[in-house]
C-alpha cells in the first residue's frame, strides 16, 4: 500500500498516512485530486478505480471516506477488508466511533493504525492483539495522573448521529 487517506463528505482530510516518500506539495496535490475523484462517484459504483499507475480502493462509512492506494499486483478485496478491520478496531476502542473521535483523538487513530499496518503492509490482523497493545500503552499513560480521557467538545455532540460504526456501514 502506498498511502491511506481518511476524509469527510465535505472533503476535509481527517487522517493521512504515507508509506512512500513524497514532498508535501505532491501529497497535497494527490489528496486534492483523490478527494475530488472519490467524492464525485455515485454510491452504487464499484469500490475500485485506476488512478495514475495505482489502484484506488475506497469505502464510505457514514460521513467518512477511507481511501487506500495500492500497487498493480496488490489485492483489491483484501484491501477493502483492511479498511473494514481498521474501522472495527476504531469502533472497538472508542465504542461506536464517530468522526469527532478521530478528529480529537487523532493520536489514538494513528497509534492503532501503526499497530495494524506498518510500512504499508498488514502487521497484525488479530483484533485482540492490536487492542491489547494499545490498552497496554494506555495503562502506562494512566500511571500519570494529569490525563483525563473525555473531551468536552465531543460530549456536546449527540452520540451516534455521526457514527462510523460497523453496523451502520453494512448498507454502503
Amino acid at each position, binding site marked *: 500500500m502506498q498511502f491511506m487517506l481518511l476524509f469527510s463528505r465535505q472533503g476535509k482530510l481527517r487522517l493521512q498516512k504515507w508509506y512512500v516518500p513524497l514532498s508535501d506539495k505532491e501529497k497535497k496535490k494527490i489528496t486534492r485530486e483523490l478527494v475530488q475523484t472519490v467524492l464525485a462517484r455515485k454510491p452504487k459504483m464499484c*469500490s475500485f478505480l485506476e488512478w495514475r499507475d495505482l489502484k484506488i480502493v475506497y469505502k464510505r462509512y457514514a460521513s467518512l471516506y477511507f481511501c487506500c492506494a495500492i500497487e498493480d499486483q496488490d489485492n483489491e478485496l483484501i484491501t477493502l477488508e483492511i479498511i473494514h478491520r481498521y474501522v472495527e478496531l476504531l469502533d472497538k476502542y472508542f465504542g461506536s466511533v464517530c468522526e469527532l473521535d478521530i478528529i480529537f483523538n487523532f493520536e489514538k487513530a494513528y497509534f492503532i493504525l501503526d499497530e495494524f499496518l506498518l510500512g504499508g503492509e498488514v502487521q497484525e490482523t488479530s483484533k485482540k492483539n492490536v487492542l491489547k497493545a494499545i490498552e497496554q500503552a494506555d495503562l502506562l499513560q494512566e500511571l500519570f495522573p494529569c490525563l483525563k480521557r473525555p473531551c468536552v467538545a465531543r460530549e456536546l455532540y449527540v452520540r451516534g448521529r455521526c457514527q462510523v460504526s460497523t453496523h451502520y456501514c453494512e448498507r454502503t
Partner: protein
Amino acid sequence: MVQVRGCQCAFSPSGKSREAETKRINKELANIRSKFKGDKALDGYSKKKYVCKLLFIFLLGHDIDFGHMEAVNLLSSNRYTEKQIGYLFISVLVNSNSELIRLINTAIKNDLAGRNPTFMGLALHCIANVGSREMAEAFAGEIPRILVAGDTMDSVKQSAALCLLRLYRASPDLVPMGDWTSRVVHLINDQHLGVVTAATSLITTLAQKNPDEFKTAVSLAVSRLSRVVPSASTDLQDYTYYFVPAPWLSVKLLRLLQCYPPPEDPAVRGRLSECLETILNKAQEPPKSKKVQHSNAKNAVLFEGISLIIHHDSEPNLLVRACNQLGQFLQHRETNLRYLALESMCTLASSEFSHEAVKTHIDTVINALKTERDVSVRQRAVDLLYAMCDRSNAPQIVAEMLRYLETADYSIREEIVLKVAILAEKYAVDYAWYVDTILNLIRVAGDYVSEEVWYRVIQIVTNREDVQGYAAKTVFEALQAPACHENLVKVGGYILGEFGNLIAGDPRSSPLIQFHLLHSKFHLCSVPTRALLLSAYIKFVNLFPEVKGTIQDVLRSDSQLRNADVELQQRAVEYLRLSSVASTDILATVLEEMPPFPERESSILAKLKKKKGPGVVTDLEDTKRERSADVNGGPEPAPASSSAKSTPSPSADLLGLGATPHVPAGPPASSGGLLVDVFSDAPSAMATLAPGSEDNFARFVCKNNGVLFENQLLQIGLKSEFRQNLGRMFIFYGNKTSTQLLSFTPTLICSDELQTHLSLQTKPVDPTVHGGAQVQQVVNIECLAHFSEAPVLSIQFRYGGTFQNVSVKLPITLNKFFQPTEMASQDFFQRWKQLSNPQQEVQSIFRAKHLMDTEVTKAKIIGFGAALLEDVDPNPANFVGAGIIHAKASQIGCLLRLEPNPQAQMYRLTLRTSKEAVSQRLCALLAEQF
C-alpha cells in the same frame, strides 16, 4: 484529550468561517512559539501538550515550521506518553531529508538498545514511518539481528520485519543479505500467526529481488498454506475473519508463491494443487455468513489463488476451473466482483489453455459494455474484449466496440479508438473491411483519432494493391457527406491524390468531380490539412492532365499565392511553377506514386503501449514535436520515428519532400531555384548517427529531465539531480520495438583529461531489453575540478541480427554544479570589480535565436543554476546572476550579466570568474540558450 482541548472550541470540525479558524490558529501558534522561546524551561508535560497542539493544527491543513526540536527532545523522555507524542510528530511531520535526522537516530538507537519492548516498538514504528536513507544507514545492520534474535518478543519481531521491509524498499543497497536471511525464511513456520503475516511480506519483497537466496520459501509457504486454507473457522481463533481462516496471511502466501515458477518437487506441487482446488471448491460452497466481509475475504483469497494459477500457466484443469468461476462472477450482483472478474479474465485470455474458455463469455462481456452503469467497469469490459479478440470473433468485437464508441465516456475514447484500429488491422482477412472500419472510426470519433491511426491506414493502403481501388471509392463516397471530419479529409486527400485514377473511369467520380469534392472542403480545414490538399492537387496534375488548367487557376488565386501562411504560400507558388515549367516526364517522376512502406511494427500499437507503459519521461510528446519540427522545417508534426531514417512518412506532405528516396537529387534546371530549397532542407540532420543529439544536449543545459535521444528503436530519457559537487543521473533506455534488444551495453566514455576532472560511476545494465520495456541505469557523478568537455554515452546492441550503435553526448555540464548565491547590489559590484583582471572576464555578443521574452530568460538563468539578482543592475532590462561552482578541489565564484537589445535582436553576455577556463565554458554554454 487534555492537550488539544485548548484548540477544540475554536476548531469545530464542521467549520465556522475559514477566516475565523485561521485567525484563531495564528494566535495559538504565536502563543506556542512564545512558550518554546521563553526563558523558562518547559517541563515535559507542557512540551508534549504544545507539540501535540502543533500536530493537531498541522492535521487541520495548516503549515507548521517550528517545534521539530521540541519533538526531538520528547524522544529522550522516559515517560511513555511524551515519547509517544514525540515519535508521532516525527513520523507525520519530518520528511526524510531533515537535518534533525541525526538527533532522531540517536534517540532511536537508545530505545532499541534499551530492550524495553514497548519503547522498541515505538522506535521501530518511527523508522518504518520515516524510512529515510540516513535511517537505513544507521539501522539496516541492527534490525535483522533484532528480527532473528531468540529472545525478541513476537510483537517486536513483527515490527522489525516490516521496518526492514520499508528500509529495503527505500534503499535496497544498504540492507546487506547475510546468514539472517535463512532464519527469516523459517519465520513462515513460526507459531505466532501475526509474526508469519508480517514476515511473509518481507520475504516476498526480498525474494522478488533475490529469488535464489529465498528459494526455500516455496516449500515452506506451500506447507503453511495447506495448513491454513482448509482450517475450520474456529481453529485459528482471532485470526479467523468472518469465518474465513487467516485471509490476509493466505493472500500473502499466495503472493509470495507468484515470485517463483511452479515447484519442481512433485510432492510440493501436488500439495499446492490440492490447496488451490480447495480454494476453488470453497467458492462453490454456500456462504457461512450473509455479511459482505465474509464474501470479500473469501473471494480475496480466491482471486489471489487464480492469479497464482494464471502465473503458473501450467495446469489446464485449474485454468479452466478458474475461468468458469470468473464467468459466474461476471453476472454477480456485486459490482466489485464483476469488475475484478473482468480484470482477472483479461490475463486468463492470454493463456493458450484458457483462451477458448474465456471466449465463451463474449456475450456477457458485450452485455456488460452496454449495461454497466460505472465507467470503470465498462473500461474493464473493453479491455477484456480486446484481450479475447482473435480472428474468429474480430468482426463482432470490432462492431460492438464501434457501437459503444458512439456513447462512450470522453475519458476512454482515445484508448478505444486505438484498440479498434489495432484489432481491425491485426485480424483483417479482408482489407476492404479494414478500410471501412477505420473510416467508420473517423466518422464516429474523429476527434479522438490520432495521427498514428490515419497514417497507418495510408501505409496499409499504399502497401496493398488489392485494396487501393476500394479505398479510393470508399473515401470518395464518405467525402460526399455534407459535414465530415477533418481527419477524413486528410485520408481522402491523400488516397485520391495517390489512387484517384483507379476510380476516374466512372463518370460519377471523374477527375473534375474528385477535385471539386476535395476543394469544397478546403476552406473549412486547418493549415496542415490544406497543405496536404495542395499536394493532392499537384498529384492530380500528374494523374489527370485534363484538370491541370482548373488546378492552376486555383493555385494562382490570391487566396493561395498570397496566403498569409508561409507554408501554404510556398506550396502554391512552387506547385504552380512546377505544373507550368516541368515536362510531362519530369512531372511523372517527381509526382510518382509513393513506394510501399517498409513493414514494421504498427505505430498505433507502439502508442497504446506507451499509453499503458510507465510514463517516466514526462515531456516526451513535446520533445517529439519540437524535434520533428526542427528536422522537417515544417509546421506539421510528422512522426518522429519516420524522420530519423529515410522511411517515407505519410505526414501531411504528399510529395515526401523530406525523405522519399526516389525524389531526384536535383530539381529540373528550369524550375527556377525555388524547389532547391525545399528539396535540400531535409536530409543533412538525418544521415548522421544520432540526429539532433547536439540540439538535445543544448536543451539540457538549463534543465535536468527529458528525452535525450530517440529513434525508431530506442528512446533515452534522463532524470538527474545535483547537489554541490555531487550528482546523480538516471538514464532510462526504452525499447520501442516489440522484440528484444540483445547484448545491450551502454558505455560511458570520458577522455583522459576529462577523467581527472569528472568522476562517473555506474553499474552495467541487464544485456537484454525486452520489447516495450524500459531499463534504468544510475550514474553517480562527482565534479573533481572544473571541466569543459562532455562525456559520451555510447550504446551497442543487437536488434534483429544487426548490430546497432548509438552515441550521444551526455549533458553533464559545468553549470550543473552551480550553487546560487543571493547578494545585495553593493556586494555584487564590489566583487565584480575584484574580478576585473582581463583573463577573468569573457564576453560574447550574439544574435537572439529565440523570442526575447523576459520571463523565459529569467527561467533559463535560474535553470542554469545561478541566483537571479533583482534590483542590482541600474538598467532593469538587464539580467544579473551569481553563484558558486562546486568542485571537489575548489569552489569558484561566478558573476554574470546578460544585456538584451530587443531592437537589434542581440544579446551581450558577460561572465566573470576567478578562472579563465571557467568563464569561457560558462559563457559558451549559456550563450547557446538564447
